[in-house]
């Protein structure tokens, strides 16, 4: 790589008076331009326009639309479907975060042991995370159906009375969405926890074991604080992913039965592309943005404090 660097004649080099200071030429600002322009065109400008449209009655086509102030937002308060969708979104996000990370952590502890199948299991358990979410959701739609494999399995192990249409029951369908996401991404949490566990020097762990510290105590007092960065990343990824969830709901239930599993994201899609209410739809997207921002900011503050306290 350095072979391509031309060595200039000595006269052109920086004067020896203050070589260190002079040599620190800052890279030019225009290096950021390509990235900034792409980002501005695709994200920044459309987002700003989106916030503006949220205060209009735009239908997506008609160039004539009117500013209607906060009406899209006040309408939302009278819209049972929208309030339900916000609630579903929060339930899904919290449930996924707790369950996926709980299981992910247990899996990480399991494959971070001396078991012979540890490498094989790492590869196997992480594999669902690379599969297209819409594909895993269609797969599970069949597994959870009335004649699906889950019911067959229950029949086989003598739990035939539990058999039902898992996605057809409004009380259960939301939890089935959570199940599918957890199945797919528990291995992702595992991989991040595993990286955290492996960065803990074995000696610390062994010293505690020799001192007679029990396994639970060892985990809580030694492993958990050192795992703080992995916990931060995992919580961020799963909660924000859960809040934005769209593909899995779209493919598993389409938001149904009725509106039992509609999330903010599926409602945004339906309102815009089946009802043509772009303004209202974008107002929902603004609500989604506010929720994501509050959660990110809150999580950042809390976890940052914990991480500092732990170190």
């Amino acid at each position, binding site marked *: *790589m350095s072979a*391509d*660097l031309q*060595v200039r004649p000595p006269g052109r*080099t*920086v004067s020896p008076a203050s*070589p260190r200071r002079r*040599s620190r*030429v*800052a*890279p030019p*600002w225009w*290096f*950021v331009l*390509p*990235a*900034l322009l*792409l*980002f*501005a065109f*695709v*994200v*920044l400008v*459309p987002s700003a326009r*989106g*916030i503006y449209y949220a205060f209009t009655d735009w239908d*997506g086509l008609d160039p004539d639309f009117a500013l209607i102030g906060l009406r899209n937002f006040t309408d939302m308060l009278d819209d049972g479907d929208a309030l339900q969708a916000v609630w579903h979104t929060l339930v899904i996000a919290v449930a996924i975060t707790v369950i996926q990370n709980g299981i992910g952590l247990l899996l990480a502890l*399991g*494959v971070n042991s001396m*078991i*012979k*199948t540890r490498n094989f*299991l*790492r*590869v196997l*358990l*992480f594999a669902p995370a*690379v*599969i*297209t979410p*819409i*594909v*895993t959701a*269609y*797969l*599970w739609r069949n597994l959870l159906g009335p*004649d699906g*494999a889950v019911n067959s399995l229950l029949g086989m192990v003598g739990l035939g009375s539990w058999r039902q249409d898992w996605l057809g029951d409004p009380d259960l369908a939301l939890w089935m969405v959570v199940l599918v996401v957890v199945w797919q991404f528990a291995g992702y949490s595992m*991989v991040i926890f595993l*990286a*955290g566990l492996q960065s803990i020097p074995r000696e610390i762990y062994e010293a505690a074991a020799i001192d007679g510290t029990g396994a639970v105590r060892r985990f809580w007092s030694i492993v958990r604080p050192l795992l703080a960065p*992995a916990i931060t990343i995992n919580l961020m990824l799963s909660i924000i992913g859960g809040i934005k969830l769209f593909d899995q709901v779209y493919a598993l239930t389409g938001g149904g039965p009725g509106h039992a599993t509609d999330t903010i994201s599926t409602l*945004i899609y339906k309102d815009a*592309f089946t009802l043509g209410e*772009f303004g209202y739809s*974008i107002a929902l*997207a603004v609500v*989604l943005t506010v929720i*994501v921002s509050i959660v*990110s900011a809150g999580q950042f503050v809390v976890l940052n404090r914990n991480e500092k306290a732990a170190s």
Partner: protein
Amino acid sequence: MNRYTKRTFLLEMVMVAVGIVFAFPVYVLVNLAIRQPSDTSSPISPTTSPTFGNFTGAWREAGLGGALVNSVLVTTVSVFIVLAVSALAAYPLARSTARWSRGTFLLIMLGLILPFQLASLPLYQTVRDLGLLGSVWSLVLFYAGLQVPFTTFLYVGFLRALPRDFEDAASIDGAGPFKTFRYIVLPMLKPITVTALVLNAVAVWNDFFTPLLYLSGSDQQTVPVAVAGFVGQFVSDWNLIFAALLISIVPVLAVYLALQRSIINGFAGGLKG
């Protein structure tokens, strides 16, 4: 501590059982994809007379060939662009402490919070006005911009932890900023580039919402959209659908198994960024 004890054996059994539970859906996927539609036995009992007919049928009907080509094209081009522009931008953003540099970095990081739903509807209008609806190039443009914040975040974090000595030495030797970037900075960024490549490629390849908006009603498809359209068309012909699902995940799983170490490290690598 490092011996294989009775407790280790118990743990091994538990973990293998967990592995079987996780693999169960994939077993059913394969089991039903090779089953003749006339065979109505339980989905969990092994298929007795397997057939490849579902695969040929699904391949023909779902247009998966064209969709695979499109997905490969969109993923390759957009990920290449986003890695190139983000690495280039990260260089001054990580090294300069000037006010414009901090401000620009924060502005780009704003993109980590903004959900794409907010931008995607107004952008849909722009893309329509530009006549790019139904073109895979609209997707390339979209991902190239959408993935900038995350990729820049990874690069800036990584670069800040690297010493400047090599860059300083290069500039003492008279290398210009672009040469320094190309021959000094870029090679040092290799580990984080692998991470960024893996995460971006998986995100772009798997995305469904964007092509659903921008390609709907056209004959252009990516793999996720082709699969969704196929499921909508063959609602209850699950043997055919499962064959299509299996075809769509085989390329992904093949790449994953071939590069498992880099890919798993790539996903875990965000931790160090």
